[in-house]
C-alpha cells in the first residue's frame, strides 16, 4: 500500500494545480470583489457634462434604481462596451447615468458625439476623487444602485450581452421581488 503513496501525492498535486488553472480561467483576475456591495453608495455631488452650473448628487437620484457607468474617452474597452450599453442595457428600462472618469470634458463630449450618447445624464469626475469613494480603479465599471441609494451590483470591465443575461437581469429580478 505504501508503495502507492508517492503516486497518491502526485495525484493530489495534479488535482490541486488543475483546480488552480480551472479557477483562474473561470473569473476575471483583474476583478476585485467590491466591499461596497449592499452598502449605501457614497455621497457625491458632481457637475453635469456640458453644464458646469448644474450638479447631480446622490439625493436627487434616489427613488428609482439606476445604472452608473464609469467611462472615459481614453478608455478603449468603453468603445467595445458602447453598443451593448446603447441596446441591451438601455432596453432594461432603467435610467443610465454616465460617470465620466478622469477625462477632459471636451474629449468626453466629442467621444459621445462620435459614438452616440446612451446616457440620461453624464456627471464629471475630473480628478477621480469621487471614483475613489466608489472603489473605481479603471474603466469601464458599472454599478446598479437601488431606489434607496444602496449599491446592489457591480461589474468590472465591459458589459457583454452575456453579462446582461447572466448577472444584471437576475440582479434586477431580485430588486423587483422586494418591490425596490
Amino acid at each position, binding site marked *: 500500500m*505504501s*508503495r502507492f*503513496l*508517492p503516486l497518491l501525492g502526485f495525484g493530489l498535486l495534479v488535482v490541486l494545480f488543475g483546480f488552480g488553472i480551472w479557477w483562474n480561467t473561470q473569473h476575471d*483576475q*483583474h476583478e*476585485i*470583489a*467590491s*466591499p*461596497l456591495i449592499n452598502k449605501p453608495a457614497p455621497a457625491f455631488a458632481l457637475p453635469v457634462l456640458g453644464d458646469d452650473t448644474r450638479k447631480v448628487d446622490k439625493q436627487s437620484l434616489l427613488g428609482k434604481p439606476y445604472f452608473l457607468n464609469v467611462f472615459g474617452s481614453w478608455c478603449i474597452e468603453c468603445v467595445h462596451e458602447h453598443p451593448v450599453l446603447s441596446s441591451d442595457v438601455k432596453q432594461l428600462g432603467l435610467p443610465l447615468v454616465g460617470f465620466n472618469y*478622469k477625462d477632459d470634458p471636451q474629449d468626453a463630449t466629442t467621444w459621445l458625439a462620435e459614438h452616440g450618447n446612451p446616457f440620461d445624464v453624464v456627471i464629471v469626475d475630473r*480628478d*477621480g*476623487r469621487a*471614483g*475613489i*469613494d*466608489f*472603489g*473605481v*480603479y*479603471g474603466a469601464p465599471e458599472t454599478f446598479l444602485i437601488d431606489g434607496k441609494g444602496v449599491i446592489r451590483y457591480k461589474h468590472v470591465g465591459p458589459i457583454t450581452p452575456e453579462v446582461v443575461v447572466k448577472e444584471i437581469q437576475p440582479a434586477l429580478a431580485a430588486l423587483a421581488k422586494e418591490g425596490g
Partner: protein
Amino acid sequence: MRRLGLLALLCLLPLLAIAQAIQPLPFRDRAEEVRFQKLSTELRCPMCQNETLADSNAPIAHDLRRQVFEMMQAGKSDAEIKAYLVDRYSDFVLYKPPVEPKTWLLWFGPLLVLVVGGLVVFVQVRRRARTARAAPTAAPVNDTEDDW
C-alpha cells in the same frame, strides 16, 4: 580612463527611470517622506495587481498616492489610511492580509504542510528502524524493494 568614467555615468542612467516613475510630492520633512514610502510599499495597486502603490505608474496608483499623502497631511494614522482604502477596495489593497478565518489556510497552510510532511517522515523512519531491528541481516536485500 575618460572612457571608463563615461561608462560609469551611463550605468547610472537607469536610475533616472526611478526618479521619473513617481511624481514628487511636497513632503514637509524627511520623516514624513519615509513614512509615506513605507506605507505605500505595504499597499497594493488595485489595477496592476503585482505592483505596490509606490512602484506603480497606473493612473489609479497616482490618485491613491495623492489620497494617502493628503490623509497623512490631515494627521490620519497609518491604520486609518489603510482602513479607508480597505473600505473602498477590500483587503486586496493590503500586501499583508489580516489573520481571520477566511485567511487561516493562507497563513497557516505552510505550517500544516510541514506538520503533515514531518509526520510522514517520522512514521517512515520508525517503520524502517523496526524492520532493520527485526531482520538485521536481511536489511540490505529489503532495501532494493523499498518504496523510497
